[in-house]
């Protein structure tokens, strides 16, 4: 069955600095079903880490648990060394975790500008918020043009930009991205990932869930493959890209 956690750690190599985000021996149940079965991973500041795996492997559940929407049954989640796995979602956002959810989930009846404003609801530095808003309009000019339009009238790609912008408005220490390419035309997917690459260059730390393995590994520094709630493979993006067979095997459950 699955490779124990030791093996991935050995692949990754120990880093001396305390990671920004550390998930330790996490277990999450949905009713009687175990969705996450003892996952450990870490994200160092400035790093982009991809979370790969088939549908139902537990990727979204992991992000939801980090955000506090789902409570773990066991294990710990540390942000900068501070335990956050028992805190309410609003506190976790204030501590610096922003979550750009699957399916975008923008507030359709609110305008683009109002969506961005709510993204910064946890912040008090008004000047910084205004500057960040302009930065996001510069990043996605179409959002600036449509700032007074209800978000529900935007196209899927524009809504994804808005969801990303809304998450960035929290000025997060770590950005959780759940399938940013889902349901988008290839051109828009490229645009979104180009933006993510710019954010990475700016030093934004990301934990990225993505079905598109190529895109994810091009952007990420490291990746974990989840299968049925366990880490089945982990390594640097470069190594994993060079060994597709191992990744495919980790997806499908054959022994690597």
């Amino acid at each position, binding site marked *: 069955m699955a490779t124990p956690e030791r093996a991935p750690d050995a692949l990754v190599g120990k880093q001396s600095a305390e990671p920004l985000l550390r998930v330790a021996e996490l277990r999450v149940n949905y009713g009687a079903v175990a969705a996450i079965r003892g996952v450990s991973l870490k994200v160092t500041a400035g790093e982009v880490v991809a979370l790969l795996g088939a549908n139902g492997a537990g990727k979204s559940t992991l992000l939801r648990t980090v955000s506090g929407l789902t409570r773990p049954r066991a294990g710990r989640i540390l942000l900068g060394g501070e335990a956050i796995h028992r805190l309410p979602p*609003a506190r*976790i956002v204030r501590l610096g975790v*922003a979550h750009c959810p699957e399916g975008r989930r923008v507030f359709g009846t*609110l305008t683009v500008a109002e969506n961005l*404003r*709510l993204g910064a*609801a*946890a912040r008090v530095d008004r000047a910084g918020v205004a500057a960040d808003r302009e930065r996001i309009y510069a990043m996605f000019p179409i959002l600036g043009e449509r700032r007074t339009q209800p978000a529900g009238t935007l196209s*899927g790609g524009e809504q994804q930009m808005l969801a990303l912008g809304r998450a960035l408005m929290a000025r997060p220490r770590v950005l959780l991205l759940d399938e940013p390419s*889902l349901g988008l035309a290839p051109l828009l997917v490229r645009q979104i990932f180009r933006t993510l690459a710019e954010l990475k260059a700016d030093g934004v730390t990301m934990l990225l869930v993505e079905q598109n393995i190529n895109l994810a590994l091009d952007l990420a520094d490291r990746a974990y493959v989840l299968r049925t709630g366990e880490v089945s493979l982990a390594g640097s993006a470069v190594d994993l890209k060079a060994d597709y067979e191992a990744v495919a095997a980790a997806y499908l459950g054959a022994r690597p």
Partner: protein
Amino acid sequence: MSLELYITQQIINAISLGSLYALVAIGLSMIFGILRMTNFAHGDMMMVGAYSTLVLQSLGLDFGWAVVVGIGLGALAGVIVERVAYRPVRGAPEVTLLLTSLAVTYILENLGILIFTSSGRNFPIPDWMNSAFQLFDGQITFTQINLLTVALTAVALGALGWFVTRTDVGLGMRAAAEDMGAAHLVGLDVNRLIVAAFAIASGFAGLAGILWAAQAGVVEPTMGFTPLLKAFVGAIIGGFGSIAGALLGGYLLGALEVLIVAFLPSEVSPYRDAIVFALLIAFLLFRPNGLLKRVQEVKL
């Protein structure tokens, strides 16, 4: 009497009645929007507002201040009910919330009967409020309290409109009503938003109760029941959960009731409420989302 003036008179009546329905319906809709529960105890905040004003006046407080404090106590009662009765069962099946709110209604109304007895009491208002405006040789008549009802409702609605479009808490309330999960994700303090919704909704109901009592001249512990049902119909007509819908539905319902009494044969008038509730059934059957259908996102 000319038809134009008669119609004008009825429009005035409709706006006055519709204002009360709108005030109650908006609160009902706000609470439904954010908690997905029909708060049957909402009508009892009318009682709290009206009786508070009555008691405060009898204690010697000036009418205006009694109204202000009465609205505040209505809001406070709503917040307390949310904290004590609804928050512990939040997340339970909808029927649990529904039954809880029914229980709260019975408790509050019986508490009212216990304190004030079940018989009605006179609701004193300053004399000037009963003075009537007469236009066109008395063909159009309305009292100061009618005017005050419309004016205070307009102020309340204007303040609400500002609140839900210009403040973080107001925007957050709308966001939470649309997608509670996403509201959590962006870091909104949902408990605070729910408290704010109950405070505003119940304050509006308190104001409606005071105006209702002022127009009727009497208060009784079960006074909130009928307006609550009517407001419920109004909220459904407009689109339950939408503030604009509740506003529209409240005024439409006021207009409809006035229309039935003013323009249909007098034999029909006694069936006014039956017609209103038949309308509710018709809407639930054929247009359950109301006139202002909420935008449903296609979510991937």
